[in-house]
């Protein structure tokens, strides 16, 4: 069983939902990334999503675009991101780490070289924003060979047939993009999300995470009520952007945000149980 599957199984028996925060690796500087990863776990994160900086992040809103630019000032490469995961694994053998980024850096490294090195470093999953299932066959084969879960996105525009083929290829969890737009956009429409999740559940053989538009404890709790995992990106990265030069404050604010989300999510799932 993969580390991601194990983590979801444990959460399910504890009747809790997964909190998955995102940071861009190397933002604001490479030395803070591994400490931030540990700090997020301490504040209640179940799985970590680590963004691989890219020069042309087409699916990102302004907050994560700026994070990529800050990281690229330090020339943070995919190899360095893999090394960061390896460093994180020295102290944390259990928390799954999913890399999220764009195809070109993986393409340049080579699918096999990436799969082998990432797996050896302790990477558990890969989300490639601009790689739809139609073009993913070769990469998925290499990832599955080494036990890395390829995680695919499902969008509000994905119809039933596509959802089915995405779920067939996917492992680890399915990532539902809750709105049409870029990361950090408007607030999500919880009823629309709920309806789409019931369509996805017909095909999904893995847990379903929801991301895009989750800004605070309230929205996190709403999503926890209907999904298996809550992915928080821009709200976390904002804590970095607003405190550049003050590493302690970045850490504190991210931890405060995650603790408030964790508490609201757990309260929500507990009350749902009682009801």
């Amino acid at each position: 069983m993969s580390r991601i599957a194990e983590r979801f199984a444990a959460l399910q028996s504890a009747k809790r939902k997964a909190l998955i925060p995102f940071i861009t690796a190397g933002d604001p500087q490479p030395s803070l990334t591994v400490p931030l990863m540990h700090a997020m776990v301490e504040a209640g994160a179940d799985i970590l999503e680590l963004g691989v900086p890219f020069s042309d992040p087409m699916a990102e809103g302004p907050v994560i675009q700026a994070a990529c630019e800050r990281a690229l000032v330090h020339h943070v490469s995919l190899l360095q991101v893999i090394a960061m995961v390896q460093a994180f694994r020295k102290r944390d053998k259990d928390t799954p780490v999913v890399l999220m980024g764009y195809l070109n850096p993986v393409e340049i490294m080579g699918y096999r070289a990436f799969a082998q090195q990432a797996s050896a470093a302790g990477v558990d999953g890969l989300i490639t924003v601009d790689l739809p299932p139609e073009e993913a066959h070769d990469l998925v084969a290499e990832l599955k060979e080494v036990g890395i879960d390829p995680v695919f996105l499902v969008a509000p525009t994905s119809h039933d047939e596509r959802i089915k083929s995405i779920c067939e290829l996917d492992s680890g969890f399915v990532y539902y993009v809750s709105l049409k737009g870029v990361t950090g956009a408007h607030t999500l429409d919880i009823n629309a999300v709920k309806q789409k999740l019931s369509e996805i559940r017909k095909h999904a053989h893995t847990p379903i995470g929801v991301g895009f538009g989750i800004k605070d404890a309230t929205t996190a709790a709403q999503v926890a009520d209907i999904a298996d995992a809550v992915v928080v990106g821009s709200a976390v990265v904002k804590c970095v952007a607003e405190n550049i030069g003050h590493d302690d404050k970045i850490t504190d604010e991210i931890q405060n945000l995650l603790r408030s989300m964790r508490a609201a999510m757990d309260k929500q799932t507990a009350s749902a149980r009682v009801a």
Partner: protein
Amino acid sequence: MSTVMKPEAQTIKLGEMPDSRGHFGPYGGRFVAETLMEPIEELRQAYERFRDDADFQAEFDADLKHYVGRPSPLYFAERLSNKLGGARIYLKREDLNHTGAHKINNTIGQALVARRMGKTRIIAETGAGQHGVASATIAARLGLECVVYMGAEDIQRQAPNVYRMRLLGAEVVAVTSGSRTLKDALNEAMRDWVTNVDDTFYIIGTVAGPHPYPMMVRDFQAIIGREARQQIQQLTGRLPDALVACVGGGSNAIGLFYPFLEDAGVAIYGVEAAGFGLDSGKHSAPLCVGKPGVLHGNRTYLMEDQDGQIIETHSISAGLDYPGVGPEHAWLKDIGRAEYVAVTDDEAMAGFHELTRVEGIIPALESSHALAYVSKLAPTMGKDQNIIVNLSGRGDKDINTVAKLEGITL
């Protein structure tokens, strides 16, 4: 007498690419966020329906004739040919089109598709502003809302075109992310599209992007080559010996090349921008010195560093200042059907002045790259041989740039 075809020539018909999923060999395809996969599939289905629809074609042809002014002439540049002392040079006069370049052929085609799909809002990216102007023009003509994304750097460099777009009623949005140039404008247009996908049609300006764009834009631009093929045969009684066109994204080039791809006797040259020189690192020549990768929805040759980050490009010509290139060009390079070369800023400037003074035609700086290569190629060919050069645009938009380089304030 029977013709013996090579096996590969039988299996791959050069004029019948891409495959059903948009691949030109290993290039092309669809590399976009999941939210856009349904919309681009809808677009493909709609486009393939209209492509075979007589009403659509009649409307497109009528617009090309009465609005754009087609067919554009194929002009024998006699004084230039004599001066270079080799092949006879024919200019395909896309500079005489409405709005001054080949870009309008494609924007009309896509806007007609958009209207038939019921979209009310069009968006476009632009570098030099030519595609933005062509998009704003057709939006005005069809009464569609139009938003043009343009890098903040380019807005500074191309003020007259920005004003033209605004006069035409378009909203011009300055893009301040990344390198603040064409590639970032493309990123921002993709972000708009993913957000407003229900009512919005994205008019991509070149033969790049996810399938079906490279095929669709090529089909709309192929009018250039179809006319030229007929015109040269009327003028000379035979096919040309060589074709030359500049390549940024590559839409004017593929428009000229495509109808000649299966004519093995026609040599094909695409001319990239070598900027300050291919060794300088400051150029826009992905086919000459780049590597294959994935950007903006397709796999193609890119200007990128060892980590797979896209690097900043340079060309004197804003229309060639782009780190990628259409996937069909990538494939034509690999199979050896076309040869891709590059000329520097200085060589392009010399080509600009030469045509202006010898033929009384002021070419766009983009097209000046093709002319600069012709001045090397023509003298190596015989006087009985013919070259067609795509004069893709006129140079009025560039006079500020040229004057500034020569230290003149207008």
